[in-house]
């Protein structure tokens, strides 16, 4: 098997990094969707006791996603320096 060039190996490593981040972001986003449907269902039922807890949990998920995005941007900056 032909050995990949250093540049190609670096790209594959970088792609793996982004893929890992993406795989971490997706379940967090699915949790947010679930929180939104819980709040919506409660609202449609005329209640609002879970409105604040679901919003806070969703905000926490968003902040985690934002933190993960920083890593993606970090990878991009590395590309810009090349």
């Amino acid at each position, binding site marked *: 098997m032909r050995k990949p060039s250093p540049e*190609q190996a670096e*790209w*594959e490593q*970088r*792609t793996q990094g*982004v*893929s890992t*981040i*993406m795989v971490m*972001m*997706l379940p*967090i*986003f699915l949790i*947010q*969707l679930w*929180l*939104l449907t819980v*709040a*919506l*269902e*409660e*609202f*449609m*039922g*005329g*209640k*609002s006791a879970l*409105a*604040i807890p*679901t*919003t806070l949990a*969703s*905000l926490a*998920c*968003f902040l985690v*996603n*934002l933190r*993960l*995005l920083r890593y*993606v941007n970090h*990878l*991009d900056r590395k*590309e*810009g320096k090349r």
Partner: protein
Amino acid sequence: MKEGSTPKWREDFPTLWSRDTYVTRRDFSRFLVLVSGATVVGNSYFVARKYQEEQAPKTTKEVALVDELGEGQVKLFRYPTEDDPALLIRLTNGEFVAYKQRCTHLSCPVHYAKNTDRLECPCHNGAFDAKTGAVLSGPPPRPLPKIHLKVEEGKVFAIGADET
């Protein structure tokens, strides 16, 4: 731009598969964060509505004249705000009762069935007792919120409503 260097826009249109995969996944991750923020905004809407409902003033509102409704008749009105439909019912014993019109299951409008003396929700066959608002059958989890009434000088007034 320095001569010989790759322009910035070229980075987003790579020719190698490995770079292309990187760019599409990076953009997808960014989009995911954007939508993630949008869901927070969506959740915040429900908090805003909760706050708005808590701030709504308790008002007295004239709903109908006593002679306006015969036994078993219904009048639709809005209370406490224009966004809250409600039903005023004159029961067969002559007594007035009023409820919010939104079913406690999924907010479908309920209607009064005179022959059974029940409030029925057509969406999922929920039914409430017209005298008390209690759930008789179907999926509604709670009784219909009652609107408190006062009869004075031949007029019916709404003077407050139960929490939803």
